[in-house]
């Protein structure tokens, strides 16, 4: 088990390094002259040269990379090219908002997706199964921001159940915080719920057909206990999908935050992209991949617990 954990940790670190390096050079390749975005089209060549010197663009690319990478290794992502404030601090301010929404959305996805998938899978082709299937086909494909717009129009503007825009920190009001992240979380979760439910449904059907389920029943076990056996064997695929969905939720949050005017990472990403503020973009990329690595690591441990073959190997 320990060897298994170490192996997964190393894999996560390798991924983190690869993404950091890849993104740095991708960003620099995509942006030929960062000063154009930072200063706008009205700036004189002299102003631009001054800024370039200030943020170190006049040095060789590899030197710039090494500078950034050394900092990143110890968790220091440098300063913004626009306001010269610490990247870490800016991300730290925005992160709780995005994490609130994404974590809430992941929880909703896990709970509702498992329930729907299990019910549909235990009774394939029942009315519930067919309704879920029809709805899921469409919900899966529709982008989260499109769903957000529908939810905003319906629940916030017409029914006025939830605020349409804005974020309330939990320290200020726990209820207000929940209300402010409910619509964004649901907009994100709806698409993910159906994916998890569909995956679990198919796995439940497949496991239910396996011989050992009949044998368990033949031993006189109750329906509930047999269902637990089925669920445990069906869950690895659904868990894997849930982890993939987490990455998708991080992506989706960027547009959804724009719709709900949430002061989160998405907003920061979008603003930095408009300005060409590369240090912030790089910081955000690395931080979000760290979260993905953590989630995948938890997933691996869960899979190892569920499936003894993985653990023993």
């Amino acid at each position, binding site marked *: 088990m320990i060897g298994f954990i170490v192996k997964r940790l190393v894999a996560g670190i390798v991924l983190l390094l*690869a*993404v950091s390096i890849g*993104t740095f050079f*991708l*960003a620099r390749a*995509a*942006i030929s002259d960062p000063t154009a975005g930072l200063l706008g089209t009205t700036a004189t060549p002299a102003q631009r040269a001054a800024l370039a010197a200030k943020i170190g663009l006049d040095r060789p690319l590899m030197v710039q990379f090494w500078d950034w990478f050394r900092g990143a290794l110890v968790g220091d992502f440098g300063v913004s090219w626009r306001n010269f404030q610490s990247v870490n601090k800016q991300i730290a301010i925005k992160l709780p908002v995005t994490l609130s929404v994404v974590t809430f959305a992941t929880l909703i996805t896990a709970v509702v997706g498992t329930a729907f998938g299990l019910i549909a899978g235990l009774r*394939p*082709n029942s009315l519930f199964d067919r309704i879920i299937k029809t709805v899921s*086909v*469409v919900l*899966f*494909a*529709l*982008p*989260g*921001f*499109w769903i957000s*717009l529908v939810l*905003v*129009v319906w629940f916030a*503007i017409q029914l006025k159940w939830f605020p349409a825009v804005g974020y309330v920190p939990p320290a200020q009001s726990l209820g207000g915080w929940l209300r402010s992240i409910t619509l964004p979380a649901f907009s994100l979760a709806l698409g993910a719920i159906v994916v998890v439910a569909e995956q679990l449904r198919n796995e439940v*059907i497949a496991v*239910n057909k*396996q*011989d*050992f389920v*009949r*044998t368990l*029943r*033949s*031993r*006189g*076990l*109750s329906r509930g*206990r047999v269902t637990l056996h089925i669920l445990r*064997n069906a869950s690895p695929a659904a868990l894997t999908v849930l982890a*993939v969905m987490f*990455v998708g939720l*991080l*992506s989706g949050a*960027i*547009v959804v935050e724009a*719709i709900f005017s949430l002061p989160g990472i998405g907003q920061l*990403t*979008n603003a930095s*992209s*408009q*300005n060409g503020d*590369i240090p912030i*973009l790089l910081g*955000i*990329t690395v931080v*979000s*991949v760290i979260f*993905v690595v953590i989630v995948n690591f938890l997933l691996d441990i869960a899979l190892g617990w*569920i499936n*003894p*073959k993985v653990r*023993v190997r």
Partner: protein
Amino acid sequence: MSSLSVMSDLAPSAPRRRSILSRFLSAPAGVVSLSVVIAVIAIAVFAPWLAPHDPNFVDLASAKVPPSAEHWLGGDATGRDMLSRLIWGARTTLLGALVTIITALIIGAPAGIAAGYFGGFFDRLSSWVSDALQAVPGMIILLVVAAGTRSNFVLIMATVGAFLAPGYFRIARSTTLAIRNEPFIDAARVAGLTHPRIILRHILPGIGAPIIIQTALATGIAMGIQAGLQFLGIGAASVPAWGAMMNEGFRHMLSTPLLLLWPSAVLGITIAALAVAGSTLADVVRIRTDAPSARSSGQVTNAAPADVVTGSFAYAPEAAAVRVDNLRVRYAAGDGAVEVVHGISFDIAPGEVLGIVGESGSGKSQTVFSILDLLPTGGSSSVDGMWIGGQAVHTMSPRERAGMLGTEIGYIPQEPMSNLDPSYTIGFQLTQPLRTVHKKSRAEADAIARAVLNRVGIVDIDRVMKSYPHQISGGMAQRVLIAGAIAGRPSVLVADEPTTALDVTVQAEVLELLRELQAELGMALVLVTHNFGVVADICDRVIVMRDGAIVEASAVETVFAAPEQNYTRELIAASLDDTKGRRELDAVHAAQTAATA
């Protein structure tokens, strides 16, 4: 099937395999969704001729006007014609999606096929890259790319394609791998085909459908991402785009909701149509593997008349351990149902071993599943009466009936490895029924489990209790399953081909064990098999089944010494234990040839 019937066995009017396309088009969802997709494509292609106005012509007098004869869908915030912008937007959307899909397909599919077919280092490397791409939040990277080239939409959509490539990679790889492991690929290699030829002829035809399904879904996703990017303000301002229109509509949502409604509806319908088309196609392709419908109210096509019953009783009702009267089993098939067991009656005395023999499709396994009341999904059985251990189970509620399992009836399955839950230890699987069904304490259950394991001949009990199924051998797994079947001290044991999956040396051990246990515990044993050697070894009486009916039922000596039916004789003769050797056969053949010459 004897060699004579080989000629006539082909059904003369076997239905032609209908093409996937025609099955797709006979589904209403398929026709509607495909029509929508084709309409969107046509609109995008013919945009210059279809659009009534210049999509970028600003006419402030028409700003936010409601739908009219001049502007069918009204004007936008700066008075540009809504309909024309939507039509030109279709072109933008489709071009963007095309760039994405082509990129994803070119990167993903060939790499997936190569990885699945050749395996090895390339497989490991490309799988790692694919997993890594999936672990990166794509939207962030897209905004990094967009930071420099906010209006270079082709580059951005190609980047989207890179993030969708893992989808193609995985599906191409897994499909290739599945086909690669089929024996017909080995056969093709032995037949002298080159690798490119094998990929072309055997792999690619199998990959087409999954790739098209994936493309339908990926196109929808690409359109969604594209609209999301446009919503964030990425893309050239001069090009009409649905996402940008939604952004504008969103800003004027409270005053002019139509500005948001039109582009949202168009985007939503297009994506939904793609999703439905993909899902319908997926259903059509896997139609044969789908679970049968749970409702089977329809006609039974081949039911035997209700009064035709094969088989008979050998014992008085009160003397039988199991008594089955007029059992019928049917399966849902399409709109109707097919009967696979056509009314059979039999019984078995306590302490007796009854063999049920027959070839595949004879209904022998369906018969034991009916006794257990554990028919697979879609199957149902009916009886005039069924008694187990003297209790009339046909009058019981399903709950009471389920209560017979594990207490009155024990079950030994065919395939040892697939009948143990891979996620739990052997110890847990043996003790769970004892604790929850027989209400034993943890310590009692543990002691009983160890005792039965000892009885079935397992030496290393501590290790086996802690092992997972994949850590023990097939022969040992079958002993564990036998231990589980007898742990509840049932009066009847049903065994479905309990030795078929085992090697002969293990089979002999397991048969010996069954014989000993049956004698020791005085159980009635119903043993399903296709092997007359097994019958001769262990059975007291035999039922021979064919096509869902009992053709013969007698004591084991009678069946072998003087079978009533030709079919039985043919079956026994087909067991080759007593066959002439090859040299002998050749000598006979040579003599015959010489005689005729």
